[in-house]
């Protein structure tokens, strides 16, 4: 196969640019995630044609226009099953699924939990800005209690959704938290997530200066610390769940909360032992043996 003619060798960040420049607001955390993702792909040496990126709908989903790869821009809340479908069709591709907190923890929550359980080998990155932004500012499941928004003028009321604790409870095999304001660290997390064999989940703290100005870069920076510098070992579900209980209004741990290796969904179907389903030749199928029970 000829090497991709449009790419530099080694890959550069620019190889992942499209003609479309991001339309996010100035200061939006999405820019940081954009940069981190491209850096991670460079580090992983993954050329655009080998990467599938699946997006949900949101400001986060608008990302679909800004990065070169095989991109699928799906429905609000439904990016994960599309990603899993890609992986089952062609397990040799690297699949990264990207969405927002409304996308993944409200509309798409069921898929989040169940995809974790399946341990399909893909990476899921959530732009967690604790608000619905593209629809101009309503409370999301991760909005802090008391968060005032267009739909919660007296303050958000419901028990704040804890993505990390949920992921631990559902049997996540790679559970991490990143920060859009720390691009190198986030890029490293993405690299580790993509390399992880199984479902890797990265909840990214993302400032949205427009609809959640209180949770600014500074607000986050004041609370952030890194698990790896604390001697935290991400090998214990109980400890991970406990760690995830730290209220983000007080302390925000970044890094890998939990990691373990266990069989993936592809293993269950013995896919790694075969050619990708999508490349199977359809000429040599013989169904005659299947007639037996009906004779």
């Amino acid at each position: 196969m000829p090497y991709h003619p449009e790419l530099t060798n080694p890959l550069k960040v620019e190889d992942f640019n499209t003609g479309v420049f991001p339309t996010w607001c100035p200061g939006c955390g999405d820019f940081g995630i954009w940069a981190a993702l491209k850096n991670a792909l460079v580090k992983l040496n993954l050329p655009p044609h080998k990467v599938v990126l699946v997006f949900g709908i949101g400001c986060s989903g608008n990302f679909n226009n800004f990065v070169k790869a095989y991109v699928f821009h799906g429905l609000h809340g439904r990016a994960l099953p599309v990603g899993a479908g890609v992986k089952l069709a062609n397990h040799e591709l690297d699949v990264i699924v990207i969405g927002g907190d409304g996308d993944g923890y409200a509309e798409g929550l069921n898929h989040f939990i169940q995809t974790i359980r399946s341990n399909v080998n893909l990476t899921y990155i959530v732009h967690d800005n604790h608000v619905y932004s593209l629809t101009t500012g309503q409370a999301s499941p991760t909005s802090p209690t008391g968060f005032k928004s267009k739909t919660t003028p007296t303050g958000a009321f419901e028990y704040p959704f804890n993505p990390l604790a949920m992921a631990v409870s559902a049997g996540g095999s790679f559970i991490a938290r990143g920060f859009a304001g720390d691009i190198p660290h986030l890029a490293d997390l993405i690299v580790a997530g993509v390399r992880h064999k199984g479902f890797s989940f990265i909840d990214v703290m993302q400032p949205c200066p427009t609809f959640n100005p209180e949770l600014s870069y500074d607000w986050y920076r004041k609370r952030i610390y890194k698990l790896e510098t604390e001697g935290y070992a991400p090998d214990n579900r109980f400890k991970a769940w406990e760690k995830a209980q730290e209220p983000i209004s007080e302390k925000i741990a970044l890094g890998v909360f939990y990691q373990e290796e266990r069989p993936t969904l592809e293993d269950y179907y013995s896919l790694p032992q075969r050619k990708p389903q999508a490349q199977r030749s359809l000429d040599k199928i013989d169904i005659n043996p299947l007639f037996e029970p009906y004779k």
Partner: protein
Amino acid sequence: MQTEIKTITIKIGGEAGFGIKVAGATLGKVFSRLGYDVFDYTEYPSLIRGGHNTFEITIGEKVSHHVRPVNLLVALNQQTFNDHLRELSDDAGVIFDPVKVTPNSKNLRQFGVPFTQITKEVGGSDLMKNTVALGAVLAVLGGNVEGLLDLIRSTFAKKSESIIGSNINAARGGYDFIKNNYKEPFAYQISLKPARDHLYLTGNEAVGLGAIAAGCGLYVAYPMTPSSSLLEFMVKAGSKSSVVVRQPEDEISALNLAIGGGFAGVRAMVGTSGGGFSLMVEALGLAGITETPVVIFEGQRPGPATGLPTWSEQGDLRFLLHAAQGEFPRMIIAPGDVEECFYHTAEAFNFAEKYQMPVFILSDKNLAEGGRTVSTFDQKKIKIERGEIATDEQIASAGKYLRYKITDSGISSRAFPGTIGGEHDANSDEHDEAGYSTEDAHMRTQQMDKRLRKLDAALKEVPEPVLYGPANASLTLVSWGSTKGPILQAIEEMKGMSVNFLHFIYVWPFPTPKTKEILLKAKKLMVVENNATGQFDSLIKEKVGRVPEVRCLKYDGRPFWPHEIIKEVRQVLENK
């Protein structure tokens, strides 16, 4: 009402959970192997136990559908007798256990058989009564018991000798009891037929075989009657045929998974019923705008909502036709019988990939779960056509690739992930030719037109409906999907009457110019549908501009029986 005897209908009834279905299917297979055409029909409630189950089979030289009246009833309990007495022919017989059932009707030929006692004698469980009954049925009909015994041996091949032995003894017990105690032959007797290369299977099994033959590589379904048996088939057969079969958390996930698979280059399919499809509606539009091929099996059952989960209807046609916001092309294929299930499911994958759109296989409980004999499928008839796919080389030589290029046919080539230079954005937003989001009025209109043009192209390739019976007739019956069976069976019995039958497998796009002409020229149209509002009838009005003269609608969960159609036709022809 009864015409010359060409068929025999046998009905077994008893309490749900007592293996009625298995017994019935075994009997069907015995007859199928004997060279008979078999068509079966089962009624059961949405319960695991405690309800009433029946299984009917009609056998004959040529059978297109299960017919009534019933000629031989096996009443495993009193309810069976009471509930179904009025379905019996005047010369019908009834097989029953005298300690359980009192057949209080004098006109019937009565075959008391001590099921319970024989079962006990052979040391079998309560379920084995069915086996005794099957033996008795064969004896009553003048068959021999060997076919049944063979089947028992192969079915239980993996079980212990003693299980096989007691089943064999049970079957023989029932058989011998009749032979010894009822010497006078019953009015209906079977005869020896030449051996044939046939299969006896249900619509869902045929759909599954068709999908596998077509190279389906990903089947995703959440269980729902009457599609669950397709899921089970795919699980069983799929593992032998490299199909990844997945039961996800819900139907939303199912279709999105399949779309992901289709995008990545696998032939993907989902299966569900109307309720599950309701949850797939949004993703249907996603397949529409991203132009991702996907095959959707929908087994109809009576709605609204949960409705009658284990019964049948054709109530979802218009729903599928218009499902999802916005406008985009889709195809609807409604096979009329088990054979069509096989060949047209395989074809569905070709249409889906060539036209890059969702294609429905629209079935219903009657077709999905009804077993019948068919000539063994001929895989050679199945061609695989994958449509336009851009390769590394093509893209390299063209120097660029546009996923949503505006073309005359509306079709633009697909590039699968992994293809060098084929990177693009399969975008649920309206997009430009490369796939990037656009709000430009002109490009929007162009992309809409492009997508809709694909349906015009498909219409040119869609098989015409088949006209059964004489070319010219005073009355033309029109139907789609599974109503084919009872109508064909009725037509068979109406030979000599001025009636013919136009059957649609390809329901959408509709109509081809030729079809339109036929429908306009027909002397009188009678549309036969298993629904309450006449959905195909409304399509004819809308798209052909003719108001069909008669509508024959039934929406109580049951199929049409041939005699009902004959009655209706007679009425129409006489009133004319």
